[in-house]
């Protein structure tokens, strides 16, 4: 079971080579296969996640949640997705047309690109990039541009305000996010995600880096624009923020990308702090799914419990609390490592 998918990939490659295909073509076909699987998983996962979120919000609010369509209402999101596909596409006359149109597409591209380096199990990553973690951070920083494009392109006050706010928020929380990961990097001595997983053979890093995990979690919530930090889509304040003017499929792409990012960030948390695919009995890819989902449950729990934070508190929380705390965490980690090395452990 453990090597199920890697074995399948190997068998497929060798089969294709045996058919006389050059190895590079076999690799290419395999890559397309991997990509297809990732996109299908992403899409299906979002459908499951939205349903789960609605169910969980129902559970938290003493309601039932969707239960009419399919078992436990599981097909509800499918109906929603199909409906969104057939909705009219409105491009407001005052919009900056091309920017308005491309913003959601680029947003989802960036979200999917994150999966290229995620180890979805032992040896199950598309690219085993040796700067994988850094790739994650860099690419994540690009999504701010997409939100800005959406806000600017809509030419709507709510949109631009929402976009400007969320960009200010995302750049502020990018720093503590990166800093919180440094502690992990110092312990693992690598930026390669699968090596970081291997480094957690003895202890999960959550035990050594609890502060870093907390910082990461909070900063990630802000980066995802979720929960108490949902500035770009503050429904009760900015109507729908940066997404105000988006309809149908374009809006759905934003929505898809947000959930895709949620999965990616949770999977990264599982990889960095919870030993990735490590765990007894079950194969690694199953473990990572379980851990990712558990972390996502916490994200949802937060979202359905907290009120939305005010913008100035949000900003000062990052700059005046999270950044100093994460820097102190780096310092203490460094001191700890030096100390233990001095002790000769």
């Amino acid at each position: 079971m453990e090597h199920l998918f890697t074995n399948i990939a190997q068998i497929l490659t060798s089969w294709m080579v045996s058919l006389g295909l050059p190895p590079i073509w076999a690799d290419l076909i395999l890559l397309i296969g991997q990509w297809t699987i990732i996109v299908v998983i992403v899409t299906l996962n979002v459908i499951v996640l939205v349903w789960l979120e609605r169910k969980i919000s129902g559970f938290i609010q003493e309601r039932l949640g969707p239960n009419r369509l399919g078992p436990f209402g599981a097909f509800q999101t499918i109906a929603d997705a199909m409906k969104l596909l057939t909705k009219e596409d409105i491009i407001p006359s005052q919009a900056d047309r091309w920017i308005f149109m491309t913003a959601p597409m680029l947003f989802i591209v960036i979200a999917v690109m994150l999966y290229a380096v995620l180890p979805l199990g032992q040896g199950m990553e598309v690219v085993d990039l040796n700067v994988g973690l850094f790739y994650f951070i860099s690419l994540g920083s690009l999504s701010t541009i997409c939100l800005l494009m959406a806000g600017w392109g809509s030419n709507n006050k709510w949109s631009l305000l929402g976009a400007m706010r969320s960009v200010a928020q995302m750049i502020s929380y990018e720093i503590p996010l990166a800093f919180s990961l440094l502690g992990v990097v110092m312990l693992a001595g690598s930026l390669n995600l699968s090596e970081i997983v291997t480094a957690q053979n003895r202890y999960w890093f959550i035990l050594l880096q609890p502060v870093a995990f907390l910082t990461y979690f909070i900063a990630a919530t802000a980066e995802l624009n979720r929960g108490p930090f949902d500035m770009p889509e503050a429904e009760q304040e900015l109507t729908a923020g940066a997404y105000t003017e988006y309809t149908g499929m374009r809006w759905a792409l934003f929505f898809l990308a947000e959930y895709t990012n949620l999965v990616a960030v949770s999977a990264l948390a599982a990889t960095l702090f919870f030993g990735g695919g490590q765990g007894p009995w079950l194969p690694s890819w199953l473990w990572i799914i379980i851990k990712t989902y558990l972390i996502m449950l916490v994200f949802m729990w937060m979202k359905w419990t907290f009120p939305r934070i005010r913008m100035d508190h949000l900003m000062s929380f990052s700059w005046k609390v999270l950044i100093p705390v994460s820097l102190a965490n780096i310092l203490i980690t460094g001191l700890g490592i030096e100390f233990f090395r001095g002790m000769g452990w």
Partner: protein
Amino acid sequence: MSDQATLGIFLLLTLAFPVGAMVAARLFRAKPRPSQEKLLPYECGVDTKGPSWMRYRVNYFLYALVFLAFDVETIFLFPWAVKFQQLGLFAFIEMIIFIAILLVGLWYAWKEGALKWY
């Protein structure tokens, strides 16, 4: 294939994904002739006043500035963190000095109110 080639092909494939989604939507979605009112910006159902592309205050810019400084710092920190266990105490102290200098910047920004949101 090399890492970068894989990434490049992955990017090309991924670019196709939203394009495909939009093409599918284009095929199936409703296409009425929109009225003039439909294409107006939505601002709670009334006419918007003044341009929407408006001037923002300087604090956004200040945050971006401080952010930039720290972003550059991250770049220096990551290689250091990777090699931390090999580099030894001296590098650690160098990095503390580096961070301290930047913290002065943060402190200055804080003191000057650049971190105040208004």
